[in-house]
């Protein structure tokens, strides 16, 4: 079925006729380049699962080495036990209870987003942006969700806690202060990999759409790409 557009293409003389500098053939190379970029973006997005997206360091006199909590797409790592231990004094919920749906769906979402990028190759002109959108929006959605949970944790302190603190929102990026702890939060390698995936996906989408605009079959495709194979294009 996937080979069908190619066969259709063979019946069409137009691409060969329009081949030439700045013509359809160079646009075809853009299409292949886009496919490669989408593949790279998908790989980066999947790779980002292995690295923390966000890390917060906490410093206090009795922790000369500092404490660090790293947020991955699927879990929180680092000194979680010790931070939970400290948080229970101010009535903050255990970190493992944060974002249960997001953490459960994280791997699935990344996999679907990555898979969608691989499908772009076979999609018609109306679809690439839709398929690339999850990857492009991925880091933004993560950041928005993290901000939400930071605010929610800081604003739902248990009133029964031994130490009463005013509601607060931990700083998402940069320096902050929570009780005696100086905090320093920064995005991690996982986030940067996902951001790089998003940039590649944008680039690839632009290339791909440019190809589509130049394509002679652009009026006939919408969901499925009808363009011929590269070999027959030359």
């Amino acid at each position, binding site marked *: 079925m996937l080979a069908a557009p190619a066969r259709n293409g063979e019946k069409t003389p137009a691409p060969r006729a329009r081949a030439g500098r700045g013509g359809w053939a160079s646009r075809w190379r853009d299409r292949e380049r886009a496919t490669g970029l989408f593949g790279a973006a998908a790989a980066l997005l999947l790779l980002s699962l292995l690295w923390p997206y966000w890390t917060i360091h906490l410093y206090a006199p009795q922790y000369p080495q500092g404490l660090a909590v790293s947020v991955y797409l699927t879990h929180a790592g680092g000194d979680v*036990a*010790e931070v939970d*231990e400290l948080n229970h*004094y101010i009535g903050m919920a255990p970190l493992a209870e944060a974002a249960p749906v997001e953490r459960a769906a994280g791997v699935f979402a990344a996999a679907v987003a990555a898979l969608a990028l691989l499908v772009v190759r076979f999609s018609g002109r109306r679809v690439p942006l839709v398929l690339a959108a999850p990857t492009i929006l991925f880091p933004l959605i993560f950041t928005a969700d993290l901000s939400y949970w930071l605010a929610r944790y800081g604003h739902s302190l248990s009133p029964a806690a*031994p*130490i009463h603190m005013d509601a607060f929102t931990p700083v998402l990026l940069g320096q902050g202060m929570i009780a005696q702890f100086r905090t320093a939060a920064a995005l991690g390698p996982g986030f940067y990999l996902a951001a790089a995936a998003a940039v590649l996906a944008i680039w690839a989408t632009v290339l791909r759409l440019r190809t589509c605009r130049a394509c002679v079959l652009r009026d006939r495709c919408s969901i499925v790409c009808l363009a011929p194979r590269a070999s027959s294009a030359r």
Partner: protein
Amino acid sequence: MLHTRMTKRYLFKAAGTAALGVAGAGMVARRPVADAQTSDLLTVAKSRGLSPDEARAALATYVPPGKYDEALMFASGGQSGQVLVFGIPSMRLLRVIAVFSPESWQGYGYSDESRSVLRDTSPESVADIPGLTWGDTHHPAISQMNGDYDGEWLFINDKANARMAVISLKDFETKQIVQNPTAAIDHGATVSPNTDYVLESTQYAVPFPRTKYVPLDQEHYNNEYRGVATFWKFDRTRGRIDQAHSFQIELPPYWQDLASFGKGPSEGWVFINSFNTERAIGGTLEHKPPIEIGASANDMDYLHVINWKKAEALVAAGKTTVVNGIKVISLKDAAENGVLYFVPEPKSPHGVDVAPRGDYIVIGGKLDPNATVYSWAKVRQLINAGKSVGKDAYGVPILSFKDAVAAQVKLGLGPLHTNFDDKGNAYTSLFIESAVAKWTLGAPYHSADEAWKVVDKLPVQYNIGHLAAYQGDTAKPMGKYLVAINKWSVDQYKGIGPLRPQNLQLIDISGPKMRMLYAAPVGNAEPHFAEIIPLGKLRAWDVYPPGTNELTMRPDPNAVQPGKERIARHGKTVEVWMTAMRSHYTPDHIVANKGDKVVIHITNIEQALDATHGFAVHAYNINLSLEPGKVETITFTADRPGVFPYYCTEFCSALHLEMAGYLEVKP
């Protein structure tokens, strides 16, 4: 006045040294700053009345907050029954390791685990002495590989009850105490070059074995009292002494003393010195000479030279009898099979120390002003040639003194104990003279014209017993530091009552002349001997892996995870699986009926450095120390009705005082 000793010239010298140190630390960028700091240092030295040497010593030993000492010193604690751990060069007391005496800070002797160690209820035990609550620790021995400390285990003997303890240097806790089944009092404790055996040598002869009564008269003493050399087999993989593969050699009723294993050319041999070869037993009320006089009558005692490889072969061949559960090579077999030889040694000596290359054996004469040095090559030759000058009353061959000796070096009064540096020098404590003598060994350490000479002497305060040089009893001495372990401090500390502290003095031995650096009073124990090991050789745990049993150093079957805490009742037993964390116990209520057996397993679920909790129960004489990750069990009978608070004895957190619970015991 001290001030008057500080002439301007000397002050400049001291300041120069100080400024150099500061510049070396990279803190000085420009000359005016250096000058300002120099004059500041001068002001401090002057205001404290420090001489240039004293100011220099202060700089040489000061370890600033947050920085680490270069080495650790493990010192015995004498009649405190413990081991002390000091930092070198700061001489700060870093740890006390509870060994033979209960110690409530560490919960030692209160938890089920530590009680099982203290009472030696291990199945291997055959001659347990019940009810002991103290010990007399004398000779610490760090485990070795190839004659060099490996920093894994520490052994220490209890002189008073002939016991040997095994301490893990992973967590600095006592793991095992074995009771000598045949001997009463020991003195020497030392390890073979690869820690195959820990040797325990007896001191005061008693009926053999000690569990039998034999009247104390000269004839019975000569015939039925004995000394013993015990070779405790150490099983490294288990980290325990293996009594089934240990053995003893029966020795004459001389009072054996310290011991050192041979290494290099003398590997396979061990040397034990002795005094009271006169076999004096005293009897002052019957107008017989006191033991101290009777035991000092002869000019010579016997250095025991033991072929332990051959002894091992005799054991393997079954030439042993089992006495109180341990295999014993009889004195007759030892004498007849080339296991035991004597070489005369002057006079009531104390230390017997093997030179780093294993080629010389040094005896501290104690009542003789000489250090007597035996050449291992000569001793070996005499043994190989079967040349003896006679036999003692028990048939042990005696080798010729003059043919075995390499040199006698006149050191001064009361030479006791010798350690070595990395430049072929020996350091011997002079008890009577209150000094340390530095002297040169012979070839191959020094050429013939430099050999066997006293090159320096340094007074110490006062009555030095043993001394410990940096790795000074190993095949790889490191020089640099030496600690004089002085028995009397007399006037060195003031305003502290009649029981005076011991006085440990740190001496710089890096140069040609020894320099006094620092004195550390020890007000809680009497160190006898010590060993100094570089900090880098130790690989101690910072916290226990979660749920660790301190004895097995493996996961404890009764460890609980948070959320899995529970109380179970079966019959008359209430069993609790509890967690401790900042700042609460779960559960915080325990209910029992009068007469119930209560078993509490507590897991400290923390992993933060230093997040230790205690667990004390009112009126039940219970206190535990729960370091992060550790599991402890306490079993007791709830024999008193009432309500008993339990609480955390270690100030753990801001809500430490709130870390408490209640034990209800219903009438």
